[in-house]
């Protein structure tokens, strides 16, 4: 009996545990389907494969080999541990052996992944003496080897950021590489959605402009984890038709999937045991039984908390149980720290790891037996991806989703058939977002002058005219030329709204060392003076946030609380684009200006999570121009009527709660993070003169979330209604509409009000939907 089998049997027989399980699903093992090695394979390549024990291919590997060899662009859908890399390496190595002057570019979303990939390729390539030159080119590549990488690297491993800011703007240095570029591999293409994907699409547009200039037309090979629309997403990003290869032929071991809802502490107020403590307890159980475990936490803070709690619990036992080593892993760690943890997981010196979604991607961390999802990761496809981190081998594995009290978690854990049966979400990009497109258009003109009629993007000439007015481009002799002294790629970050990151410096004992960085808007919300910052389980207090110099000084400290900013928001409607009547309400799409100000922070005690004090914050306000969907509750609409049927005192509380609800439910419909979407309510809106609910995009300019929300309004509201109705609490709790807030001073039952309001709003919702109307405001 394996350790996993033992611990599963123990859990099944534990009545306390079993009582909280809403679903226990056994996913049977899968046999592999195979194809022989291609007959035209270069003898050296064949020898290398056979030396590595590869005598046949999985079906999908053979199919992608054939498709790429015949010059078709492909997207290969690959679950974890399905031999993904071989599905593109094979065709590429084959070509490079026959045509050594050909070049390939491998793009990974993170540096960590690309370094991992190079290690793997070097093994394959050197081990078999294939003589193919592989080079990594990223921010960590020393200047001394960059020139030789450009000149001699046949396979260059890089990331979109480096392509964007280092390679494309300097393409004349890369003439040999780009002029012979035969393949572009875009791995983990499902990560390129939303803002990042919209940037990526533009980076690919720019790459294709340049390769075309040099007379090359590379084949694109994309790999994706399971998502709803891999082909559509890939086609959108590379701008061409692709062939979908999703006949996964890899075998997999049996897996137990457990949905676990922590027990109530207070049923009336709807308070359940915290996800942090429950995940800790479960993980300890696994680790002590000798089961290698990965825990996924939803935030950096929680990652650090869970790791710290687990370590603390192990302190008492490790003399008996030998050393169980548990590490935290998240963005913001230095690359060397992350490499060390990854190595520890592979070589077995680290038995447990608590991670943000940073380890959700294909970084090689060896075989793990159990995955604990501390909270629903926000999407069904992410859940499968994280659960897939356990059981990379053919062995039995287990994945447990520990639901938090958040509405989305509660919805998933109470509707297991929805969770298990629903097709994964779709990824979408909006490369023509005003801000994103303009940023990349600047870069594109910098890289090569542009003819007014060039179809860089729909209507790009209008944007070019705008840039001409701005003075950064100039029309001369029939072409737009870059006419500014700056280097535009420098001020465009693919990952966040702003390029200016704040560096976090530990100044304890007068020794200055950089321990991480974060983007400027979030710095204002997490790194204000006196904030508690947690890094690798250590607590730091912010001594000085210097936004001007993009620097934050912190010192080590030891207190029993953490801090949370209280954020004030103000909204101004700038422009109404479109009004439609749907779902029993008036919906207005348009541009808004959101002003955000952090003026105070709360101190929250560890474990009990009670509020133990406040502090003042003085940071400048942040301004964002974005897209919003406004739901206007006009009296003559069904939604407006439903609102007016409520007791006047209950109207504001009800609308506030619906805002919270939809914001929490929407991510699973839109494949975005809960923080990507914001909600704000006004009982008497100065612009519309009516009660309103604003749902707006958290990214400057908007990346299409407001529009997507408009299209999904009814299913989202229906999910919100079933969530409120199904909740066991009596007056609202964190799992549905939020607990009763004494400061609101309301007499009625807010949960019932919301439930009644939504029911009335949705009752005849199909009847009065009207076609969309454009209106210029």
């Amino acid at each position, binding site marked *: 009996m394996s350790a996993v089998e033992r611990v599963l049997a123990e859990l099944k027989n534990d009545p306390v545990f079993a009582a909280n399980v809403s679903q226990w699903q056994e996913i049977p093992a899968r046999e592999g389907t195979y194809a022989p090695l291609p007959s035209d394979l270069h003898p050296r390549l064949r020898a290398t494969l056979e030396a590595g024990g590869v005598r046949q291919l999985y079906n999908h590997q053979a199919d992608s080999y054939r498709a790429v060899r015949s010059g078709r662009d492909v997207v290969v859908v690959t679950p974890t541990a399905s031999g993904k890399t071989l599905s593109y390496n094979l065709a590429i190595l084959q070509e490079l052996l026959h045509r050594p002057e050909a070049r390939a570019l491998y793009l990974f979303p993170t540096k960590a992944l690309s370094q991992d990939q190079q290690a793997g390729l070097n093994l394959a390539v050197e081990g078999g003496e294939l003589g193919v030159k592989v080079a990594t080119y990223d921010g960590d590549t020393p200047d001394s080897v960059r020139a030789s990488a450009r000149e001699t690297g046949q396979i260059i491993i890089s990331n979109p950021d480096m392509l964007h800011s280092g390679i494309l703007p300097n393409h004349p240095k890369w003439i040999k590489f780009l002029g012979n570029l035969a393949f572009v591999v875009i791995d983990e293409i499902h990560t390129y959605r939303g803002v990042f994907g919209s940037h990526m699409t533009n980076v690919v547009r720019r790459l294709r402009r340049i390769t075309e200039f040099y007379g090359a037309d590379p084949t694109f090979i994309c790999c994706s984890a399971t998502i709803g629309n891999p082909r559509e997403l890939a086609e959108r990003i590379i701008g061409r038709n692709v062939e979908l290869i999703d006949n996964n032929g890899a075998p997999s071991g049996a897996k137990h999937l457990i949905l676990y809802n922590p027990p109530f502490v207070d049923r009336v107020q709807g308070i359940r045991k915290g996800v942090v403590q429950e995940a800790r307890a479960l993980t300890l159980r696994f680790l002590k039984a000798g089961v290698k475990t990965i825990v996924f936490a939803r935030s950096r803070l929680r990652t650090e908390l869970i790791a710290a709690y687990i370590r603390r619990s192990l302190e008492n036992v490790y003399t008996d149980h030998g050393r169980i080593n548990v590490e935290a892993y998240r963005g913001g760690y230095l690359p060397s720290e992350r490499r060390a943890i990854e190595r520890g997981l592979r070589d077995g010196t680290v038995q447990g790891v608590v991670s943000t979604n940073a380890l959700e991607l294909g970084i090689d961390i060896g075989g793990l037996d159990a995955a604990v999802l501390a909270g629903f990761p926000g999407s069904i496809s992410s859940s499968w991806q994280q659960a897939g981190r356990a059981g990379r081998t053919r062995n039995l594995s287990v994945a447990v989703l520990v639901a938090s009290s958040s509405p989305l978690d509660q919805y998933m854990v109470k509707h297991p058939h929805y969770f298990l049966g629903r097709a994964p979400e779709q990824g979408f990009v909006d490369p023509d977002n005003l801000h994103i497109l303009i940023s990349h258009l600047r870069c594109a*003109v910098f*890289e090569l002058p542009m003819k007014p009629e060039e179809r860089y993007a729909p209507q790009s000439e*209008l*944007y070019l005219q705008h840039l*001409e*007015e701005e003075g950064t481009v100039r029309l001369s002799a029939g*072409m737009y030329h870059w*006419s500014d*002294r700056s280097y535009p790629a420098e001020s465009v970050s693919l990952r966040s709204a702003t390029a200016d990151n704040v560096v976090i410096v530990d100044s304890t004992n007068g020794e200055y060392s950089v321990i991480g960085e974060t983007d400027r808007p979030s710095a204002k919300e997490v790194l204000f003076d006196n904030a508690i910052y947690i890094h690798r389980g250590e607590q730091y207090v912010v001594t000085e946030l210097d936004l001007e110099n993009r620097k934050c000084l912190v010192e080590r400290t030891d207190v029993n609380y953490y801090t949370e900013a209280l954020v004030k928001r103000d909204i101004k409607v700038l422009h109404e684009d479109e009004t439609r009547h749907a779902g029993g309400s008036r919906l207005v799409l348009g541009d808004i200006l959101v002003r955000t100000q952090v003026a105070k922070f709360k101190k929250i005690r560890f474990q009990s999570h009670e509020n133990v004090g406040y502090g003042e914050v003085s940071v400048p306000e942040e301004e964002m121009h974005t897209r919003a969907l406004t739901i206007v509750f006009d009296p003559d609409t069904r939604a407006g009527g439903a609102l007016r049927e409520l007791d006047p005192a209950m109207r504001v509380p009800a609308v506030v709660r619906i805002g919270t609800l939809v914001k929490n439910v929407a991510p699973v419909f839109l494949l975005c993070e809960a923080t990507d979407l914001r909600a704000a309510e006004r009982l008497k809106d100065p612009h519309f003169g009516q009660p309103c609910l604003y749902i707006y995009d958290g990214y400057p300019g908007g990346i299409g979330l407001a529009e997507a929300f408009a299209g999904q309004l009814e299913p989202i509201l229906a999910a919100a209604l079933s969530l409120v109705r199904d909740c066991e609490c009596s007056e609202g709790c964190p799992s549905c509409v939020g607990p009763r807030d004494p400061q609101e001073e309301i007499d009625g039952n807010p949960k019932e009000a919301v439930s009644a309001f939504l029911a009335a709003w949705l009752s005849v919702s199909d009847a009065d939907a009207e076609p969309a109307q454009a209106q*210029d405001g």
Partner: protein
Amino acid sequence: MAHDLAGRIRLLRQLRDSRLTRPSTADEEPESGPSPQTGPIPVAGEAAAPPPTGFSALADGVWGRVIRLAAPQLAQVVRRGSVLLPAADDAAARAASIRFFDLETTGLSGGAGTKVFLAGVGVLEEETLRVEQLLLADLGAEPAFLDQLALRFPEDALYVSYNGRAFDAHQLKTRFLMNRRVHSLQFHVDLLYPARRLWRSVLSRCSLAELERSVLSIRREADLPSAEVPERYFAYLRNRDPAALEPVFAHHYHDIVSLSWLFITMDEILRRPCAWLARSEVPFDAVQAAVWLLSHPRAADRRFEAEELLNAVLRDEDRASDERVEAGLLLGTCHKRAARPHEAEQVYRLLYETFRDPRVAVELAKQLEHHRRDPAGALEVLEAVDLQGCPRGVTDDIEYRTQRLLRKRDRGRALHG
């Protein structure tokens, strides 16, 4: 869902205008004509714009001017052949027409979007330096501009620049590549590298402007800082007023002329370093000058000057001990390479007796042991060294050598005893 694009761009513009507080530099030209926010953009017509003073059209969109300046000293240096130039046989032919060059670009960070808008080349004609400046009148005229540059920058000529190897030459090559042409300067001497040898330890910076002040004793009146050059050009493109460019032309012209003077001065110093050291009006790093001479492609021709220079430093009691030790160590190496062990020993002996420097002691001991066959003398030298504050590597070396010599002595005693 269609975006109302025009409306959204209009909005973006309003937001930008209301929020943007562009820092206006004091010397920015007031813009003539309608403001770009409300009115039409000034049309970029090369033909409509008047040429800058002294310039005439070389091609559509390319202006050029020539300024001549008497340069008898330069003519003399070039006739004689300069120590700064490579020695290949056909270089003599090229040296007759060496070209001093400098470029002005639309940005300082490089990359495909940075264009060369002003190129200058100085060629010696008889006793005069003929400086030609070529201006790109508008960005779209780059192909014609490059045609003109190709004529004035033949690939096989010999070029002299200051910091042109890392930036200008690369920029020129890029511009040709961007226009689907291949053009690169094959023979290029960048004075930055020897200048760094001569002055890095003496001056705070090694920029051309700093050398002008400290070495050539030139004071430019109201020179335009390099950082402001791109802005001037963009202002010129916007309002077509060539006056905005006058300071750029002057700055660029002076850079080329200074480059030729710097060339003369550096040639003088490196040709007769001892004489310049004695005159001491232009301080320079004599040891590094010797290093440069010794690493010269024609080092054999320069060895005498280098050794003479090192000797002068070594024996000059007014100089710092560090400098004298460095000079002596280098001189000793020269003697050893030239198979003059006695001279090497003399140098080390002199240094040893004056400074007791541990590194010198090691060298002296090696000479004594291997050439004079005097291990006892070598041991005596090593044992007398003061190891206080001596770098780790040297201490280890001394320790190792001492032990070895001790064993050798003991073996000798055992044999004879």
